[in-house]
């Protein structure tokens, strides 16, 4: 969790916003730090988090999480974090026994729909009937990242359906949040990706866009961040470009985290 980013967004772990869909984009730079930020932010805010990690292994997030002050293993053990590791599941789908049901079976089949993935998310975040479970604040779905699904042959429409279902369940029904990362490839002609990004941007209440600097590569500053907020009553778009200070902190291997 980066305190500077919290200040820019006017949130804190004590009073996070609810019922929101946040879209994270990156273009010509790596937006992974935003994912790590939100993961640690919501864990600290005592929310139940379902993290669908499609591109990296669990230990990667764990190690970065330690630098940011959260312990993913402990969170997983106490039931606060439900971690779905895409890479591991894929290997199990292809090389494991064919009978066991798997959330990523679309890799094996040509037909692509993310229904099984949605059911997994729903089961993870819907509070179970028994009252003995610890009460978390609200559920959060975090996806890293959606562009990989396009590479795996899922159509953009199927991804949009999945997000729509998740928003309906998590944001509206369970009053939680959904955060998803999409890579922006504006210089390449990836039309599906562009369509996905535009559609998701339209549905989201907050867009965080990490971009590379227009003037080129710079070693000290990794890029700039644009924050677009779409409120219901006050449709003002804040574009904040205060990134030089923030990204200097990131540059140091272990980021500062004030508790």
């Amino acid at each position: 969790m980066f305190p500077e980013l919290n200040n820019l967004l006017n949130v804190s772990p004590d009073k996070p916003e609810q019922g929101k869909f946040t879209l994270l984009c990156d273009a010509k730079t790596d937006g992974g730090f935003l994912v790590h930020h939100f993961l640690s932010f919501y864990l600290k805010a005592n929310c139940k988090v379902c993290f669908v990690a499609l591109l990296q292994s669990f230990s990667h997030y764990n190690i970065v999480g330690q630098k940011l002050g959260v312990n993913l293993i402990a969170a997983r053990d106490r039931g606060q974090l439900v971690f779905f590791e895409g890479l591991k599941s894929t290997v199990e789908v292809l090389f494991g026994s064919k009978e066991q049901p798997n959330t990523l079976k679309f890799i094996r089949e040509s037909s692509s729909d993310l229904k099984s993935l949605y059911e997994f998310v729903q089961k993870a975040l819907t509070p179970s009937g028994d009252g003995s479970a610890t009460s978390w604040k609200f559920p959060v779905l975090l996806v890293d990242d959606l562009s990989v699904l396009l590479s795996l042959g899922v159509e953009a429409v199927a991804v949009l359906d999945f997000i729509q279902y998740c928003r309906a369940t998590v944001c509206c029904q369970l009053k939680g949040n959904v955060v998803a990362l999409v890579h922006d490839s504006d210089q390449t002609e990836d039309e599906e990706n562009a369509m996905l990004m535009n559609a998701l941007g339209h549905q989201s209440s907050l867009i965080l866009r990490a971009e590379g600097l227009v003037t080129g590569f710079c070693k000290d500053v990794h890029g700039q961040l644009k924050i677009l907020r779409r409120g219901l009553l006050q449709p003002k778009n804040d574009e904040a470009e205060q990134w030089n200070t923030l990204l200097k902190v990131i540059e140091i291997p272990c980021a500062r985290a004030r508790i």
Partner: protein
Amino acid sequence: MESQQGEGGTELDSQSSIWVNTGGNKMAALTTGFGRARQGGAGDPREYKAETAAGGDKLGGGGGGGDRGCSFLRKVSVPGSGGGGGGGGGARLRSIAGTRPSVQNGQLLVSAGLPALDQLLGRSVSSERRSASSGRREGGRERGKKEGKEQINRRERGCGTIQSEEGASTRPQDLLWGCSSPTAPLGVLLYLRGGGLAVGTLLLIEEDKYNIYSSLIFKYFLAEGIVCGHTLLVASAKEDPGDILQELPEPLHDDNYKKVLDEGRSHKSQEEPEISMKIAWRYQNLPQMEAGPGTSSRFGHYYDVSKRMSQEVIQSAKWHKFFLPEEITSYANVESCALNHGYTKLLHFIQRVISEQGFDGSNPQKKQKNILRIGIQSLGSPLWGDDICCADTPEHMHSLTRFLYVLRGLLRMSLSACIITVPSHLIQNKAVTSRIRNLSDTVVGLESFIGSEKEANSLYKDYHGLIHIHQIPRLNSLICDVSDTKDLAFKLQRKVFTIERLHLPPDLSDTVSRSSKRDLVESAKQLSPGCGMMAGGKEHLDF
């Protein structure tokens, strides 16, 4: 002695331990743990890293408890004690031959076979002794040269066998941090040395047009594997992997390399006498990015491309072969997944080798751990049955990307490193190229000047091509190490492949004819705008 709680970052105090400011808890630095572990004896650096990280936060079971088979954080239950020598460790994950740790993110690194390329692919740590009296950097380097030479000779002797010292570029007395041994001098200087390819990751080489230099890098990678004693898996659809192995370059021994370098230098100096700089004299001795074996590493070898590796060495290597025409005997419709038939077979083959040979940790009581080096040649070409190189809107657009995704999963779970060459200049659909890049960890593109108009450009006259580092992975950390410069060119000298920074010559006078000035401006525009995953932009600054 604790350092002050100031701005975040790493601060070095006199007791040579590094504290990282992470909130209220001053966690021992991840690197400190590694250093301390090193004192007790060889051991998996990541194991100790997890333990010391646990100290601050009371982690249960260490960092790797959740995923046993993951190569990024392998937890070994055997306590690492005992002396540093001897290789017969049984189940103990000692330092594996030909690897070295990346202290920044706890990764194990292997050499790509080309030390110049290793330097560009991330950093690891090595150190060099320097007495307090020698203030000059050159003096330090001289000493390092001598020291490095000793170690290289030691390594050369032990070449091919697995010993705990081999390839391990960090000895207890060499490390700066975590070293509370009384013999550690205060003047130990930390030197960031060239890195390498992280174990568990994928190196994608975007081929140059005629596949000359990319196949050379492919062979360097395999040759490095043989020299370090790693197991190889070579897959190709074009040539028999046995033939590929016959063409591997011969490793150069230390004194041979020096001879070759000197020959090259004397040849060059006959053409241009070296002018010592008068004003910018401090830049006189800046390295050109190539590091000779005497100065830096005991990790990564040099090869003579004009000679072949000897038969005995090749035959002593352990390797697995996948030659597509032999594997696919019939085209029966076995669609176990929506992947190309050839890719499916290859994935099954790789998975079988990994699990049977125990690279995923499944047979802990077996012999010493080793690295599996996978090399796949010209993936995506029509010979693999894929049509992304043939059509603008290919039918099997997702075959290769799915393959890369599954391969990534396999690599992350095993002690392996993979190199793939892809003829991306043939791929018409740029979306596919960017997806392929996103699914790989490290992406290097080669652009050779053969047959292009750049060959005539005076800027490039000394070189054979450009090398673009499109992407470097961020593993276990928020940032990655990028080299300062994006403009790199390579040349294949008589026996050695070098990578150098590309400089624009100074535009000295106004009376220079207009045409040549325009050429320079054009060249400036051709310099790359930036690494894809790093901050880049559309507009160039005009010189």
